C-alpha cells in the first residue's frame, strides 16, 4: 500500500506518464476513455433534460467522471456497486440503461432499475446510510463464502455522518470485502472541505479503523484503476476493506437548483479545469498512438448514440399507475392498504 503522505498519480494533467508509473493496459485505458466520454455526455444530456423540464433535478458528476468510470470498471459481474444521487454515470458505466436510472428523476419511481439483476443498489440520498448496506452485502457474501466485492461510494461531506464511522468500523472488524471510495470534490453543497474536517487528508480516517487508506488523484483514471484494482483484490483475498480518497472537484453547482456563485469563486473552478479527467487520458492515448481520429470519432458517436437514446427514452413518458402507491409497501397489502386503495380507485372512477 502506498505511503500515507502521498497522493497516487500515474498521469500528469497534461497526459504525460509519471516517471516509473505502471500504467493499466492501453486497451483498458481506451475502454475507460470511451466510458469517460459517455459519462461526460450523460452529464451534459441530463443537464439539458432538466433545462427542458423533462427531469426535475440532476446532480452532475462533471469533473468526477474518472471516479465514476473507475468505480464501475474495477468490478466484476458478481460484485456490487453502491452509488449516491451523484453517481448516475457510475451506474451507467456498470451497464445499466441511463433511461432506467433517470426515470427516478423524471418522477416515475424511486428506483428505475433492477437492483438485484445489476447488483447496483438504489441511489442513496440519506448521506452515508448506504455504506452500511454495502458492508452488510459484503459481510453476507463472506458468511456465505461467495467471492463478492462491494464498491461503496460517498462524498466528502458524507464522511462526517455517524453512519460513515459505523460502516468503516464494522467493515474493519468484520474484515468485510468492501472498498470505500470517497469522492472528495471539495464541497458538500456550499460547505467547503475545511469546514467539514480538520484532518489533513480524508484518507487518514482509515487509521482509526485499522484499515489501509489511500489518497489518489481523482481526475487520473489510470491511478484510480490501479488503486481500486488493488483495493478490490485485497478485499477479494479476504484481507478486508480499504478506504480510498479521490482528490477531485465538482465542476458544476451541487444540482441545477443550486447557485454556486454564492459560495465559491469562478477562479477556483477554472483552476480545476486544467485537471480535466478526460483530457489527460485522451492526451496519453493519442500520444502513445492508441487513439487516432477515427477511433476518437467512434467514441464520440457512441456517446452521442447513448444521448440520443436517452432523449428518446425520457421523452417516451407514460403515465404511472396510481395503484403503484399501494402495490409494493408490503409483499401482501395489509387490509388497511386495500381499503385505502379502494378509496383511491373509487375516486379515480369518478374523475379519472
Amino acid at each position: 500500500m502506498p505511503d500515507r503522505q502521498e497522493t497516487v498519480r500515474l498521469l500528469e494533467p497534461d497526459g504525460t506518464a509519471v516517471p516509473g508509473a505502471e500504467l493499466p493496459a492501453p486497451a483498458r485505458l481506451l475502454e475507460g476513455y470511451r466510458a469517460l466520454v459517455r459519462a461526460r455526455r450523460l452529464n451534459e444530456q441530463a443537464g439539458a433534460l432538466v433545462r427542458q423540464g423533462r427531469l426535475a433535478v440532476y446532480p452532475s458528476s462533471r469533473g468526477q467522471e474518472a471516479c465514476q468510470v473507475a468505480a464501475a470498471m474495477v468490478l466484476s459481474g458478481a460484485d456490487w456497486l453502491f452509488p449516491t444521487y451523484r453517481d448516475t454515470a457510475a451506474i451507467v458505466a456498470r451497464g445499466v440503461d441511463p433511461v432506467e436510472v433517470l426515470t427516478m428523476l423524471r418522477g416515475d419511481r424511486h428506483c428505475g432499475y433492477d437492483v438485484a439483476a445489476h447488483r447496483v443498489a438504489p441511489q442513496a440520498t440519506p448521506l452515508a446510510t448506504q455504506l452500511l448496506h454495502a458492508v452488510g452485502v459484503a459481510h453476507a457474501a463472506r458468511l456465505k463464502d461467495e467471492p463478492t466485492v462491494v464498491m461503496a461510494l460517498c462524498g466528502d461531506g458524507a464522511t462526517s455522518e455517524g453512519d460513515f464511522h459505523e460502516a468503516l468500523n464494522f467493515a474493519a472488524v468484520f474484515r468485510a470485502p468492501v472498498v470505500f471510495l470517497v469522492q472528495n470534490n471539495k464541497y458538500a453543497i456550499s460547505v467547503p472541505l475545511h469546514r467539514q474536517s480538520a484532518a489533513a487528508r480524508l484518507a487518514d480516517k482509515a487509521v482509526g479503523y485499522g484499515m489501509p487508506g489511500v489518497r489518489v488523484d481523482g481526475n487520473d483514471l489510470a491511478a484510480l484503476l490501479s488503486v481500486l484494482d488493488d483495493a478490490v483484490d485485497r478485499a477479494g483475498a479476504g484481507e478486508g476493506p480499504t478506504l480510498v480518497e479521490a482528490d477531485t472537484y465538482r465542476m458544476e453547482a451541487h444540482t441545477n437548483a443550486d447557485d454556486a456563485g454564492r459560495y465559491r469563486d469562478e477562479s477556483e473552478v477554472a483552476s480545476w479545469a486544467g485537471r480535466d479527467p478526460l483530457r489527460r487520458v485522451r492526451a496519453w492515448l493519442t500520444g502513445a498512438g492508441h487513439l487516432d481520429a477515427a477511433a476518437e470519432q467512434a467514441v464520440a458517436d457512441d456517446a452521442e448514440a447513448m444521448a440520443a437514446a436517452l432523449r428518446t427514452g425520457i421523452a417516451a413518458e407514460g403515465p404511472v399507475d396510481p395503484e403503484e402507491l399501494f402495490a409494493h409497501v408490503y409483499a401482501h397489502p395489509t387490509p388497511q392498504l386495500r381499503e385505502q386503495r379502494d378509496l383511491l380507485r373509487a375516486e379515480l372512477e369518478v374523475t379519472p
Partner: protein
Amino acid sequence: MSTADPTEPVKLTMARSINTALRDAMTADPTVVVFGEDVGPLGGVFRVTDGLTAQFGDRRCFDTPLAESGIVGTAVGMAMNGLRPVVEMQFDAFAYPAFEQIASHVAKFGNRTSGRMRLPMVIRVPYAGGIGGVEHHCDSSEAYYAHTAGLTVVAPATNADAYGLLRAAIESPDPVVFLEPKKHYFTKEEVNTAVPVPPIGRAVLRRPGADVTLIAYGPTVPVALAAAAEAEGLDVGVVDLRSIVPFDDETVCAQVRRTGRAVVVAEAPGFASVASEIAARVSERCFHHLEAPVRRVTGFDVPYPPPKLEQHHLPGVDRVLDAIDTLGWEDAA
C-alpha cells in the same frame, strides 16, 4: 436589512417571514445562534437564513459539518451553556439521524434535571410534501415529535404565524420542534411583524362554520379552507391548530360541539398519527355532541410517493369534500 416599517404589514413569503423572525430574534437577543448545513454563506437551500451570516457574523450564524445528530447534540450543549440555538434540519427525513438526540435528550433534559436546567432551543424542520421532491424530501414527520413527551411541536400555516410563532419558539424556555410547510415557502402573504409575540398553544378558528368543522395544521390549512369554500350548501368551519403540542382542546372542542361533525385533514400517513390523536380526543370529548363519526383525511399509509403520484397521495380538496359527504347528512334536519 431589518424589517421595513414595523407598524405596517408587508407582503412577505413564508421563507422571508421566517428569515425576518430569525433576524429580529438575533437582534433582540445576543444569545440566539443559528447553525446547520448550508445555513451560512449559502443562506440555506431554501434561503431561509439568507444574509444572517453577513449581518451577524460567523459566530452567530454558521455552517457545521454534515451530521444531524451532531447538530442537535451540539445545540443541546450550547443551550446548557447559556445560548439559544436555532438549528435547521435541511429536510424532514434528514432529521432522522438526530432522532436519538431529540427523543433521549432534547425532549427529556429539563425533566431529567428536575427543571434545574432547561433547554431553550429550536429545531426548524422544512417539512411535508407537494413540491415534487425526490424520496426523503417530503416526509410529514410530526407524529414522531408529537408523541415524544417533553417537546413542544409547532406547525404554522400562515406567514404571519410563521413569523410570530417562531419568535415565540425562540423565546420559549423549552425545546420546540418548528415544522415549516415547505410547499408554502414562496407564497406571499401580509405579515405584521409589529404585533406582540403570540403564546404557543392556541388554535385559531380560521373560518367560522355551523355545519362541519375541519381541523388542520401546517400545509393542510389552505386545503381545508379551499374545501370549506367549495362545499356546496354547507357552512364549513376551519380550525388551524398552529401548535400540536400543547394541544388546544378548548378551541377545537368548542367548535366541534357547535357543528357536531368534524373532519381532520393532515398530510402524514394516518396510522398512529397526529390526526389519530385529534380524532380520538374529539371523539371522546365531544361524544355527546357528535352527529357522525369523526373522519380523517390523511396521507395514505405508504412511504411518500414519487412526484408523479403525489397528487393521488396528498389529501386534496375533493377528498375532503368526499369525507364531508359521508357525515350522515341523511339523518340531519
